[in-house]
């Protein structure tokens, strides 16, 4: 599945009310480590149609980032039935991300 861009506008519909588990990637263009993690997240989206993958640009969506308490990027968050079930900071190997889902 393709990766969604999550904003304040579609957050409730795409994330909170999603019937699939959601993997969120908080990132910014100036963050080197985020550029490393991004293709891994893309791959996971491609290979796992049973989950939804969204990216949140913290520059543009500061309030969303704050609502998750994001203070370091990259941060990954897994949400099931509208609830945060897992969260990780920094670049983590693909296997570990899959384990969070």
């Amino acid at each position, binding site marked *: 599945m393709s990766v969604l861009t999550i904003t304040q506008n579609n957050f409730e519909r795409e994330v909170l009310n999603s019937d699939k588990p959601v993997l969120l990637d908080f990132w910014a263009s*100036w963050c*080197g480590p985020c550029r*490393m993690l991004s293709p891994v997240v893309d791959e996971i989206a491609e290979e796992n149609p049973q989950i939804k993958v969204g990216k949140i640009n*913290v520059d543009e969506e500061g309030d969303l980032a704050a609502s998750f308490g994001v203070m370091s990027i990259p941060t990954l968050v897994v949400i099931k039935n509208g609830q945060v079930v897992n*969260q990780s*900071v920094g670049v983590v190997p693909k296997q570990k991300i899959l384990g969070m889902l």
Partner: protein
Amino acid sequence: MYDIIIIGAGPAGISAALYTLRANLNTLIIGKDGGALQQTDKIENYFGTGGVISGKELLEKGRIQAEALGAVFAKEEVVSIEWMENFTVTTQSNRYEAKAVIIATGNKRSTAKIKGIDTLEGKGVSYCAVCDAFFYRGKNVGILGSGEYALHEAMALKGVVNSITVFTDGKEITADFPEDISIVTSPVEEIQGEEKVSGVKTKDGNIYPLDGVFVALGTAGAGELARKLGLPIENNRISVNEDKSTMIPGIFAAGDCIGGVLQIATAVGEGAEAALSAIKYLKTSTSK
């Protein structure tokens, strides 16, 4: 611009240099000292030394051997690596560029654990000022550290945050911090906070309310450099592939910083492997 920069002048780094130099690569080795090996008095388990040798002596022989092949050594401390198209390695006094990098920094032996560092990582505890300064605009932050690395992190935060307090954790200041940065030299008891960092408590009983704490203790080791680059780390070790390449094309790692048995023999072997992989990488990437 160098073909390759090797970070670390221990057995892994120097061994790698012997290979890159013999492959005619323009090689710079950056290292503050010889790391763990320099501290070792007697080595009796390493091939070809004809008996007991000291770590210092073995390092010196290696350095002379590399210099004879044309190696350039910079006795400096690396504070950051960045990558766009090429790699930029920043030390306390210089910036160098290269097409490939081998990380052979060794690993810090037994760094003191401060309560709260692990549990509050990502909740106000950060290892990358450049990455996370944005989240602390107008806020009050602390830096754990006392040397060039801490100063480098402070400069990335200055002008963005409201105030910076450097906690040396009982160590002496070894870098030239600007005057508007407060310095606290008392040992640190803990980083406080439940959901997120609320402050730092020192052993003399003072509590400093803060919104975030940046960790820059001692020198920037493998873990810190990897975090800045975005390389995955496990237990403060850089994860590498079998050929010592990493997730970032052009960056390789060898020696104690990738874990394993922490022996000179393995460091030397891994340095060779990393160098051979780097040589192959540079050949294919420049022939495109």
